[in-house]
């Protein structure tokens, strides 16, 4: 519902706000409902979601306060704007992701990627993905600062080696399990106890060595029946 009457006449009854030119433009261009115009400030709810950047006004009315858009920048600047020594405008793309309490986060990101590159990256993403993007950029930047040669790739290679080692252990354990399941390993006397690391003990001689890396064995089968003690057989 567009405000009835002339927008300029209505606005003239309200005290001057710094963002009046923007308000005028919004009132004239978008479908807006305004309720409870007060003398002090006005909050505009843009139902078409086409609000201008930086066009922030406030209702003093409690009902409309719940629908308030972002406040004009009277709070402390974000870490990015502090670092860049500029005024933190209300539509600052960095503000939601670089709070003033974490200055080092932006400092790292700025050092590795640069503010303009980060702005471009964030602007290419939908808003709901920007937080994750900033977190990953901050992680990469920190990794690059700690390890200027390899950065994140160093972490990746360490993790890949760990995966390979674990996979090899799993393959060895599965191979031993297959052998036990098939009773191909002779019984072990109690005096010849060994650790669970059977793979190393078996060596490479086993002709039945099973190399499946993603083998999933069923529950181990019951052992074969022992010579029955009840009938006295030896």
């Amino acid at each position: 519902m567009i405000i009835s009457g002339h927008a300029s006449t209505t606005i003239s009854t309200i005290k001057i706000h710094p963002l009046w030119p923007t308000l005028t433009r919004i009132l004239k261009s978008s479908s807006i409902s305004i309720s409870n115009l007060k003398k002090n400030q006005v909050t505009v709810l843009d139902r078409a979601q086409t609000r201008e950047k930086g066009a922030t006004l406030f209702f003093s009315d409690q009902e409309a306060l719940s629908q308030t858009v972002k406040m004009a920048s009277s709070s402390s600047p974000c870490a990015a704007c502090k670092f860049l020594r500029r005024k933190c405008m209300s539509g600052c793309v960095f503000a939601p992701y670089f709070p003033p309490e974490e200055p080092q986060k932006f400092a790292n990101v700025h050092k590795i990627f640069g503010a303009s590159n980060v702005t471009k990256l964030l602007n290419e993403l939908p808003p709901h993905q920007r937080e994750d993007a900033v977190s990953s950029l901050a992680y990469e930047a920190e990794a690059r600062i700690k390890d200027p040669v390899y950065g994140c790739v160093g972490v990746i290679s360490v993790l890949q080696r760990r995966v390979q080692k674990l996979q090899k252990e799993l393959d060895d354990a599965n191979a031993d399990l297959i052998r036990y399941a098939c009773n191909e390993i002779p019984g072990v006397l109690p005096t010849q106890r060994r650790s669970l690391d059977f793979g190393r003990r078996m060596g490479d001689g086993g002709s039945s060595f099973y190399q499946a890396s993603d083998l999933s064995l069923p529950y181990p089968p019951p052992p074969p029946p022992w010579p029955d003690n009840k009938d006295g057989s030896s």
Partner: protein
Amino acid sequence: MSYSTRCAACKSLRRRCPQDCILAPYFPSNDPQRFASVQKIFGASNTTKILQQLPVHQRAEAADCMSFEAASRIQDPVYGCVGIISQLHQQILTTQHELAMTQAQLAFHYAQQETQQERRIMTQSQVQYDGPSSWFDPNQKEPFYLDQPLPDFHQPPGFL
């Protein structure tokens, strides 16, 4: 350096490629996409600064890593190569879980075999005696015979 032998960086930046161009060894002209991705993500000046801070023998690896990170970020603009790290972490957890389960199964098998071995040894030891064994449970009232079931040995024989 002549016009025709400019490195990919200087070609992209549309400048002359000096002989001591720091980027030239790592961004050859035959692979323009490599520098394009690095420039998009890190920026040319940041790349130059990062390489300048490193000793010469480490710059090639640093350039390769930056190229990989830039390509990952272009492919996945939200997570970049951090997505790969996350996947590897998950893979490690899964493999550790599988390994623990397999080792538990192996322990079960081993324990079963040990029990069977102990029983076999005890049975063989009992066969060697001619008469009733006096080293069985002293509370046992009847002598032991081979046709009887084995008593339950909660306590080891006294002479062992």
